[in-house]
């Protein structure tokens, strides 16, 4: 999958996450008065909401890479639910305090006070939901990407929801639109920020996954055959399970052969042990060829 397709795909996954979480949230909220407290209500709603958002985004890598989808979904749901609970609690707490303040200080409460305080809560929610994938893959870079994508997505989605509600009070599906936008923007921002903050792209040049891009968005990328690798080259010949590793030091990338002579790594047809990569380098691992470039 190319980078552009990947971004489109992330938007799609985000929108689906928005749709799914909307319907779940509505079903939970209908029974608000049956919950014993705001705390319990927020925790439950946050956990379900976060689990859905996390589950969908957790599936994305698995869908793109093939395999380990369910693992990604489960991890995403677990981390997402934790993030969702934290986001909901922090957001709701801030909303109560800010709302009470704005309720009394801002004359035009419906136009400014309400939407802004609510959108701030949403962006906190987005922050924690967006971090899920980064926490899952234990990558600070990805956490950073998720934070930026999540905050922006939450803020834009929240504002969209509130203003749609303000301007079209009769619109039944304001919250659905808001959540769709929320998911879409989180996905879009994630894709955008991911590309911006990456060290470049590895594109597979041949074989069955030809054209597939691997964003270098972590400081350490493992290449090999098998799902424990970040660049899984299963289906190509002569590849070890731990074949090579790319590491980022400051802004420079290095490729290192992991298992010595039995699993050689070539850069521009030269066998290398530990090599500094430059843009345009052609990496050969087994029968797979990858081009390192910027998008």
């Amino acid at each position, binding site marked *: 999958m190319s980078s552009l397709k990947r971004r489109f795909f992330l938007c799609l996954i985000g929108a689906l996450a928005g*749709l799914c979480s909307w319907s779940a949230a509505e079903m939970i909220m209908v029974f608000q008065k049956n919950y014993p*407290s705001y705390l319990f209500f927020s925790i439950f709603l946050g956990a379900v909401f976060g689990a859905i958002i996390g589950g969908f985004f957790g599936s994305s890598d698995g869908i793109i890479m093939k395999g380990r989808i369910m693992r990604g979904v489960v991890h995403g749901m677990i981390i997402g639910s934790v993030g969702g609970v934290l986001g909901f609690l922090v957001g*709701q707490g801030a909303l*109560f305090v800010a709302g009470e303040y704005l309720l009394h200080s801002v004359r035009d409460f419906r136009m400014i006070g309400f939407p802004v305080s609510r959108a701030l*809560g949403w962006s906190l929610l987005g922050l924690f939901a967006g971090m899920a994938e980064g926490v899952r893959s234990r990558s600070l870079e990805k956490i950073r990407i998720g934070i930026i994508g999540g905050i922006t997505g939450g803020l834009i989605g929240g504002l969209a929801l509130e203003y749609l509600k303000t301007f079209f009070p009769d619109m039944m599906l304001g*919250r659905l639109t808001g959540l769709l936008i929320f998911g879409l923007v989180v996905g879009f921002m994630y894709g955008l920020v991911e590309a911006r903050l990456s060290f470049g792209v590895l594109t597979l*040049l041949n074989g069955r996954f030809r054209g597939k891009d691997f964003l270098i968005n972590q400081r350490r990328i493992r290449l090999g055959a098998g799902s424990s690798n970040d660049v899984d080259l299963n289906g190509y010949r002569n590849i070890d399970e731990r074949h090579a590793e790319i590491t980022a030091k400051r802004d420079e990338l290095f490729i290192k052969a992991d298992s010595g002579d039995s699993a050689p790594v070539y850069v521009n047809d030269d066998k290398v042990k530990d090599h500094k990569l430059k843009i*345009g380098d052609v990496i050969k691992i087994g029968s797979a060829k990858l081009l390192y470039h910027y998008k």
Partner: protein
Amino acid sequence: MKKYISIFLMIITLVFCRISTPLLGETVRISQIDNTSLLINQNVKLYISLTDDAGKPVKNADQNSFSFFESADGMNYIPVPDVESFSAMANYESGINFMLIIDNSGSMYRNLKKKNGSASNTTKIQQAQNAVITFLDSVSNPKDTVGLAAYNTYFRKMSDPVQDKEKVRGYLSTIAKPVGDEGYTEIYASLSKAVDAFREIKGRKALIILSDGENRPYYPNTGKAHTDYGKKVFRYTDPIRYCQEEGISVFAINFGNPNDKKERHLKEIAVETGGTVFDARDQSELESVYGAIVNQILNEYMVVYNATMEPADRKYVKVRYESGPVTREAARFYFSSTMFGMPLKKFAPLLLIPLLLSLLLAWLVSLLKFENTRTEPSLEVFNPGQTRAVTKMITLSKGKTIIGGAKSADMTIIGGVSRIKEKHATIVFDERKKNYTIVSDGEVKVNNKTVKTRVLESGDVIDVGGATIIFDDGKK
């Protein structure tokens, strides 16, 4: 039938009794509402002030005289689930915020008669300024803040509530005699404006109005629109409502002479907001203003109760005080909106459809194969660089394939950083070895190495004049 009539009569009697309850006795008021621990332990804290018709705090009221209700719409109230604590003499440590507003209309420049009826030789405005100074001198809690404003036709705020009392004293001398159309007295509008000055301030708030008691609004008297309020006519209930919403009590200091036209609603505004009226001709009363307010606040009741879960953006709280024939109620609201806002009215099974639909779509997406389906050997321009790639992609034949600048070439690429020859490179298929070899005429790089001739492997990167071309043998 008789039974129904008697029930009907009973109801009528009850309703009538209720209405005929005299507007005397205690005033109950929610002076502060605190929702900061709502999320953590479902608690809302209320400070309740209970005053008699003279504005004096009612002490030792029984907890059972109070009942508490919440409402999502301000109309239908339900009792709160539980009152966790009720305490008299609620402590105050954070200080009180005062806003002093001085009547600066023309009538304030007449003399104030003394209590015994003789005219004093100072004007009412001078006496009002003295009263402010007396008040400032009596403020004893350093955390108290005082703000100052004057009003006639216009409301002029001189100082927001600040702790520096000397600063406020300094502003007193800037009050100048009204000229031109400033001679009207907008009491209700000015009180409402003073509430605005108070909105952003948290904690206990008291408004002190020094007035000789005639509301003479500009627009109804002149027929001309007011520069600030337009044609809006403020009613005395406006400041009452605003003050009640913000938990502000109004204390009035009356500078009216016995035979002046009285502002009959000023007392009502004060009493309804939990304040009281003082007489300026009585020096000892003036000196007791601060003490009376502090005393009132020190004698508030603090209630902590469990909030209901009724969905609402703002939730109304009502306190009902019943003592003998007297029933008094006061309501305020607090912010109770949740992250996603108001729920749907009732559960709709249709909601399951988007849930299932999204899961189904995600499953379908997961079935998509992002795999390369081409099986033919091919050349594809991956990145044209600075060239113009006329041909983007070709399938390789089992013969010779020419890459070059000529229109007749199999893959035409023109421009570029270095000159591209008509027949820049040729790719030849070897029938016996079943492989492709590149033979260059111009400068060609394969995998970043300049070559003359080279057997191509799948995935090799060919550079022709800066264009990046990928060779793929089509095998999986």
